[in-house]
């Protein structure tokens, strides 16, 4: 975003481009959405003394650890890509952003594998082998919405990275979608302990 003509426009109180401010506003509204889902999950879990605890160390917890590693690592590769974009290194920015996209795809595949394991054990939206029928609905809602965000981020980053190479987008656009990607990573940091680790099989 360029400067303004002195005397005609007031300076932005936040000193960020409008697109970045919109992304921040989206992020806080989305954070509240996830918080509402996690609190709804917490409400159900707290109110049901026999809440299922189905997650075994292998494969579930190991899979979740790997997913966490992949997602946090993809945040780092996104930052490296952004640094390259700021330095004017187009090929470096594209390469690191595509590595980030690859991390997102790997995360999604691992997530689907985790889902398939649970579905194989008989977990459905409103029934499961352990009682408390809402376990499946709450689990698939939270992890499904997060997975949807990962898939959306993969598509957006791919689009912006290719557009950046063609000159349609600049490093500011990459930065805005990097913000989104880090937010997806941040949400996972709350999903893992509350949805998985608090419900491990003992």
């Amino acid at each position: 975003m360029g400067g303004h003509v002195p005397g005609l426009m007031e300076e932005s109180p936040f000193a960020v481009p409008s697109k970045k401010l919109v992304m921040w506003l989206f992020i806080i509204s989305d954070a509240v959405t996830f918080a509402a889902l996690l609190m709804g999950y917490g409400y159900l879990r707290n109110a049901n003394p026999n809440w299922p605890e189905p997650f075994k160390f292998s494969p579930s917890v190991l899979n979740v650890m790997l997913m966490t590693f992949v997602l946090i690592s993809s945040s780092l590769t996104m930052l490296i890509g952004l640094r390259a974009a700021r330095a004017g290194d187009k090929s470096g920015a594209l390469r690191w952003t595509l590595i980030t996209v690859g991390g997102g795809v790997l995360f999604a595949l691992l997530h689907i594998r985790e889902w398939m394991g649970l579905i194989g054990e008989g977990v459905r939206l409103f029934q499961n082998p352990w009682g408390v029928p809402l376990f499946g609905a709450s689990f698939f809602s939270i992890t499904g919405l997060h997975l949807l965000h990962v898939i959306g981020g993969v598509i957006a980053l791919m689009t912006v990275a290719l557009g950046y190479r063609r000159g349609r987008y600049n490093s500011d656009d990459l930065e805005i979608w990097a913000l989104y990607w880090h937010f997806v990573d941040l949400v996972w940091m709350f999903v893992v302990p509350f949805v998985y680790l608090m419900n491990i099989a003992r």
Partner: protein
Amino acid sequence: MAMETAGRDSGGLGTYVAVYLCLLALAGLQIVLVYHHAEGTQLFLRMFSVALLQAGLAVMFFMHLRSERRNLRLSLAISTIFVLAMMNMIWSDSFRLLHFRLLK
């Protein structure tokens, strides 16, 4: 101009790698906590503390909020914390339902 520099003074690659390693270590700490320490409320509080620390690191360093203007930081934090705090009104009803079910 401020418009062009806010949010960009975000530290070098070394800082990013250090934060990345901290996030991985905290994720590992959660696994250790869940298998070797407290259960119930204590476990929840410890998990929540670690998750908040992870989120704080990610927001401040990866999302560069620490190098944005204070106006932006305050606007985002106050509105988010207010809404999240108001949501906590549900817990008393959750405990009521739990006690009701335990008495049945």
